[in-house]
C-alpha cells in the first residue's frame, strides 16, 4: 500500500509548482489546528470515566465470518418479498483466535441465547432496506458483544485508594468532633448537686 500512496502523491505533481500549492494547504491546516486545541484536557476526578471510552477495538477479520443473506420479515410489498436484505453473520467462538481466550469464555457465558448448538455465535440484522447497511449493523453488534465481554472490573488506582482513605479519615474526624460537641451539650445540661 505504501507504493500506492507514494504514487498518489507523485500524481499530485502533475501540474507545475507543486511546492507552492502545498503551502496553501498547510497554511489552512494550521488555522484548523488552532481550533482543535481546546478539546484536549478534561479533568476527571477519578479514573472511572476513561475506562468506558477506550479505543482498543478488536479487529474483526471478515474472511473468518460466515455471512449469509435472506429475505427480511415485515411489511414492504414487492421489495421485501424479493430482495434479500436480512444479513446473518456467524462464527465459531471457540476457534476464533482473533479474540483472547478469557473474552471468548465470557462471550459464551453472557450470550447463551445467541449461541447455537454447534457453538457458533449468530447475529442477525434487518434494520434497514439495504444489505450493506444490515451487514454493517451486524458487525457493529459483534464488536459491541466483544467489547462487553472484555470489560474488566474496575481496579482502584493509587489515587483512588488515597482519596478513599482521606475521605474515610475525614468522615471519622467529623463524627468524633460532633460527638464531643454533643457530649459537651449534654454535660452542660447536667445539674450537679454540691
Amino acid at each position, binding site marked *: 500500500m505504501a507504493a500506492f500512496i507514494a504514487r498518489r502523491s507523485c500524481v499530485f505533481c*502533475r*501540474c*507545475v*509548482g507543486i511546492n507552492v500549492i502545498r503551502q496553501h494547504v498547510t497554511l489552512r491546516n494550521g488555522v484548523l489546528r488552532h481550533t482543535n486545541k481546546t478539546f484536549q484536557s478534561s479533568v476527571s476526578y477519578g479514573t472511572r470515566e476513561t475506562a468506558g471510552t477506550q479505543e482498543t477495538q478488536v479487529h474483526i477479520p471478515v474472511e473468518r465470518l460466515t455471512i449469509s443473506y435472506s429475505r427480511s420479515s415485515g411489511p414492504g410489498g414487492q421489495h421485501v418479498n424479493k430482495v434479500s436484505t436480512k444479513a446473518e453473520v456467524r462464527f465459531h467462538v471457540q476457534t476464533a483466535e482473533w479474540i483472547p481466550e478469557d473474552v471468548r469464555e465470557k462471550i459464551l457465558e453472557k450470550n447463551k441465547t445467541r449461541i447455537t448448538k454447534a457453538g457458533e455465535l449468530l447475529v442477525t440484522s434487518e434494520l434497514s432496506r439495504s444489505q450493506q447497511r444490515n451487514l454493517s449493523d451486524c458487525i457493529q453488534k459483534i464488536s459491541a458483544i466483544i467489547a462487553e465481554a472484555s470489560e474488566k472490573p474496575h481496579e482502584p488506582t493509587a489515587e483512588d485508594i488515597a482519596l478513599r482513605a482521606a475521605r474515610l479519615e475525614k468522615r471519622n474526624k467529623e463524627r468524633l468532633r460532633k460527638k464531643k460537641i454533643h457530649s459537651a451539650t449534654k454535660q452542660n445540661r447536667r445539674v450537679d448537686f454540691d
Partner: protein
Amino acid sequence: MSFPKKPGGKALDVLQNLPRITLANLRPEPGARQTDKRRGRGQHGGNRSGRGHKGERQRGNRPRLGFEGGQTPFYLAIPKYGFNEGHSRRPQYHPLTLKRLQYLIDLGRVDPTQPIDLTQLVNARGVTIQPLKRDYGVQLVDEGADIFAAKINIEVQRATEGAIAAIERNGGVITTSFYDPISLDILIKPVPFFVRGQPIPKRMLPGEDMLPYYTSADNRGYLADPDKIQQARLALAQKYGYILPDISKDELYHMLAMRKDIRQIFFGLSPGWVVNMPEKKILKPTDEKLLKYYSS
C-alpha cells in the same frame, strides 16, 4: 457502404401510386386527437351549467384562496420561521445514484477504463448540472449499492459513506473535490469555453465552511492526507464487512491512481493554457509573472 437515403423515400414512392390527396382523404390516427371536455352543455350538463345553486358559487364571486370566512387563516396564524431563509444561497448537489451510474456504464455511455469526471458524466448525459441555479456539482448516493459492480476511478463533489464503501468494495477509487462556480461552468461545457479563447483559469480552493469537508479523509477529500485516506479505507472496510482489494496489484492501477492537481480543471491541461479549437493548438504562457501566477 450504404448509400445515403433521400428523406421520405418510401413515402414518396407510395404517394406516386396512390390517388390525389385531398382533405377528404385525410384522417388523424385513432387516439391522436382527444376532444376537450366542455362543461355545462347538453340536457344534463346544462341548466345550472355545473355551477350549483345561487350564492357566490353560482355567481362567480367567491373570496380569495386561503380565506376562512373571517377566521385568521392558516397561512397567517402560523408564525414565520426561517426554514427557507437563504435557500437561494445554499449550494446544491445533484444526486447521482449508483444504480444510474451502473446503468450508464452498462450502456457504454461512460467509459470505466478512464477516470470518470463530471465532464464525462455530462457528456454521457447522465446528469444535468445548472451552475446558475447554485449547483456546485454532483453527489454520489448509495441507492443501488447492492447491484453496483464496476471498478472505476470517479471524482464527484460529495459522496455518502455507503457510496464510498460500494465503490471501494469493487476495487475502485473515489475522490471528492471542489469546483467553484466558474470552474464548474467550464468543466461542464468545455468546448464553448475553449471557443471563447480565454486561458484556463485556476480552480479556486474551497471556502471556510467547505474546507473541513474536503480536508477530511472520511469523505475522501482531495485536500486530505493520503495516509489518512488509506487508514479510512481500511476502517470503512472493517465497518461494512468487506475485504479491501489491493489496488496496487491491478493492471489498471495507473489509471486508478490518476488524480487532478488542486488547481487543475481538466486532466492534461494546466491553468494558463489557451486552447485554439479551429487550429487544434494549445498555447502556453512563457512570461515569468504569468507562470508564477498560474502555478501558485
